[in-house]
């Protein structure tokens, strides 16, 4: 026996036991996440993809939601599923036999989710434009121009506190201010501003952080060479702060796209059979149209209608599309950050 070999002691045993426990905890969290991802992507994938070309269920992605009719086909005698429009056409084609045709109906279970996708995209575009313009400019002012004093300190405190306010409170605020006080009703505009104000604190804090991360020497060097303040900011600060701003803003896009509570009573309709740009008297009305949105649609189909095998398809399909969009945005931001971090090092 080697007398110089490491003697097993209590501390080392405890260490290896605890390492295993910590590792298992970590992997348990990862596993939980994986279960959610797998469930949605597997069952949703069955709705979205299909075996024959074009491999993607285009009806689901490009049609409006419809009522599903399930009935015994009197011609073939087999069980048959049809969307509302197809069912009516089929009924007419049967002539008088069609009048007696009875079907079980399931709302929203046929057709697709095109208006929801459109609505979500519109909401995200509008609200992010507002939030980025206001937020980035405010951050530039706070970090580059403002003098440090108690007032600015107080403003910072307020902003960081507001970042933690629940989204439903922003929803209430949007309802009180835009829907009622401004009388915009349930509309794109109300939704844009509500969502924009929700992410505004996050955008400001993150942008300010990335502005401050730019070393002071960059500014001083530029000013010493005779550049004006704005030239300094424009040429020597913003380019280096941009990556940080970009990633944070992309992450807040994911948040805006994912939130349901703020748009529930400010922008989202349960169902609407027109796209927001259709049937307008004048172009300005576009801003005052309510839209369908993916997260709200998931909420509606998973809690407001009875659960069964037919509704499950639309639930999983919508969840798949929605999760895919949000995760893709988040992934883009994470990759971008990794790339840009490697590029700018000081």
């Amino acid at each position: 026996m080697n007398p110089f070999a490491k003697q097993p002691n209590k501390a080392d045993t405890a260490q290896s036991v605890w390492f295993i426990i910590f590792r298992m905890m970590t992997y348990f969290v990862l596993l939980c996440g994986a279960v959610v991802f797998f469930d949605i992507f597997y069952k949703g994938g069955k709705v979205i993809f299909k075996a024959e070309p074009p491999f993607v269920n285009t009806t689901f992605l490009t049609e409006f939601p419809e009522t599903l009719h399930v009935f015994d086909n009197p011609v073939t005698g087999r069980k048959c599923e049809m969307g509302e429009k197809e069912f009516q056409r089929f009924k007419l084609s049967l002539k008088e036999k069609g009048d007696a045709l009875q079907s079980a109906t399931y709302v929203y279970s046929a057709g697709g989710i095109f208006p929801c996708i459109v609505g979500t995209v519109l909401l995200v575009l509008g609200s992010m434009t507002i939030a980025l313009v206001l937020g980035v400019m405010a951050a530039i002012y706070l970090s580059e121009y403002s003098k440090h004093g108690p007032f600015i300190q107080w403003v910072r405190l307020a902003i960081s506190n507001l970042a933690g306010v629940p989204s439903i409170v922003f929803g209430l605020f949007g309802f009180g201010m835009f829907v009622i006080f401004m009388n915009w009703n349930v509309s794109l505009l109300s939704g844009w501003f509500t969502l924009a104000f929700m992410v505004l604190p996050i955008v400001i804090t993150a942008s300010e952080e990335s502005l401050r991360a730019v070393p002071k020497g960059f500014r001083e060097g530029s000013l010493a060479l005779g550049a004006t303040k704005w030239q300094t900011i424009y040429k020597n600060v913003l380019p280096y702060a941009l990556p940080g701003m970009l990633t944070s803003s992309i992450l807040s896009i994911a948040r805006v796209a994912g939130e349901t509570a703020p748009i529930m009573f400010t922008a989202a309709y349960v169902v609407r059979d027109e796209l927001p740009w259709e049937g307008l008297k004048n172009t300005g009305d576009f801003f005052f149209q309510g839209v369908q949105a993916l997260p709200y649609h998931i909420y509606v189909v998973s809690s407001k209608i009875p659960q069964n095998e037919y509704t499950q398809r639309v639930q999983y399909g919508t969840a798949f599309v929605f999760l895919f969009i949000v995760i893709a945005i988040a992934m883009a931001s994470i990759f971008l950050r990794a790339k840009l971090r490697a590029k700018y090092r000081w």
Partner: protein
Amino acid sequence: MNAASKQQSIEDALLKSKKFRLFGLNADDIIKHFFAGNATIAIVVLALITVFLFREGIEFFPKHYESLRLYRWAGMEFVDYLKHESTDLSALNRMTNLMKRQESEVLRMKGLSQAQIAERLAPLDAFAAKFSEVPDGLNGLVADLTEIPVGILDRHKMCVNAQSHKTLLIRMGKIAEANAVKVDVIDFGKETAILKTFLPQCTEIHAKIKQDIVGLMSAIPDFESAEARATSLLFKKLALKFTDGIPVTEKKMAEWNPGEPIHFYRALTDFIFGSRWVTQSFWYDFYGVVPLFVGSFMISLLAMILAVPFGVGAAIYVNQMASKCEQNMIKPYIEFISAIPSVVLGFFGIAILGESVRWLTQQSCLSWVPFFPISERLNIFTAGCLLALMAVPTIFSLAEDAINNVPKAYKEASLALGANKLQTVVRIIVPTALSGIVAAVLLGFGRVIGETMVVLLVAGNRISIPDFTAGIGVFFQPAHTMTGLIAQEMGEVVRGSLQYRALFMVGILLFFISLFINYMAQKIVTKYRISAG
């Protein structure tokens, strides 16, 4: 060109640059003011949030006060004394059924046949049947009395409508028509006097109930099952408490005075401490936030109990123990988990988690757990689990940051003194990063308590204070939360009504809770920050 003009041109070139100016400001100043304007807008917007929440919410108080006064004036308060007794008695009745179930369960386990069980349970059945007759007189009286305040309120409403119609007519200048509108004034004192005339009848009924209960107490049969015996003991205790409470109620009813003033602060205290949230009922709408608050709090508590060990443990593991490759994989992965939208998680809870948890509790190998199998698919537990999954990424990333900020020298010094890695982590790194970790936990709590969609979909949405006598089983009861309630009722509410204002008040409460949590987290971080010195 003379010397003077030459001098002038040099001065021009050097001192007066031909830069663009507007209102005496050069381009740089304009840009600065532009940014300042944007910052002001952003700040004003954030102030507006508070303003608008209060603008809609503040009118809750006068309206609530008015409704509280009507509650007393119309005599609803008086009738509610009896209604409480009636609900207490029906709760006791439910307990007799529970005893029956527990006893028959034990007897069946013993292998007795159905007939034998029925024979054994006969005395208990007789007892239950007799007991169920006890509240008959009371229920009849309550049914009679309920009509009175409802009628008074209806007439009051008509009067108010007539009054507003009249003022409208006067404002439109139709004086003659306005004078034709007759506005009655309801004398609440006179109207409710009739309620007091029922007092003797009430005393009579009470005496009979007391006599019945005391008489029946000795008739409780003995039980085989320990559970049923425990229930019967509790039953006896509650029944005695009920009979003891009768004189108190009688005194309250005798002393009840519809004209007694209500303090204005009741509008606030009844909101914050009220234990009932009942809306759109035919009787009276109660706006007590306690059941919602308790629901929110219990769900968040459970979520934190689950999330804190996992979040902090994962942070310690990833930062201190994991290899570089593991770190690079786990960190983005957890960020993906945090990107899962809450409504998708809620849907997952409805579709998969709720059902599987219930299936699990129905397994016979788990039947020894006292509260299994659970009856509700959607409950505090399912919501807590999902919220824990939402809180873990928040806690993880913030705690990981905090651990990362511990100066390297601390760790190196500890290792150099011969401590092993675990000892270093437990004794040096975690205590040093503790303020950051606590702040992370607080912010995770803030995120969880403000989460809406998951609890709306998964918590079961029953507005009542969970039954804490169930022990741990309380976590398997459905509940409703502040956030979920706002989301649920806001869509159906009449704008400007009392309920609408009440929802805004709940929003204000949430606002303050989240501000408080955030503020605490910041305080902790700044106060206990450890410098690298």
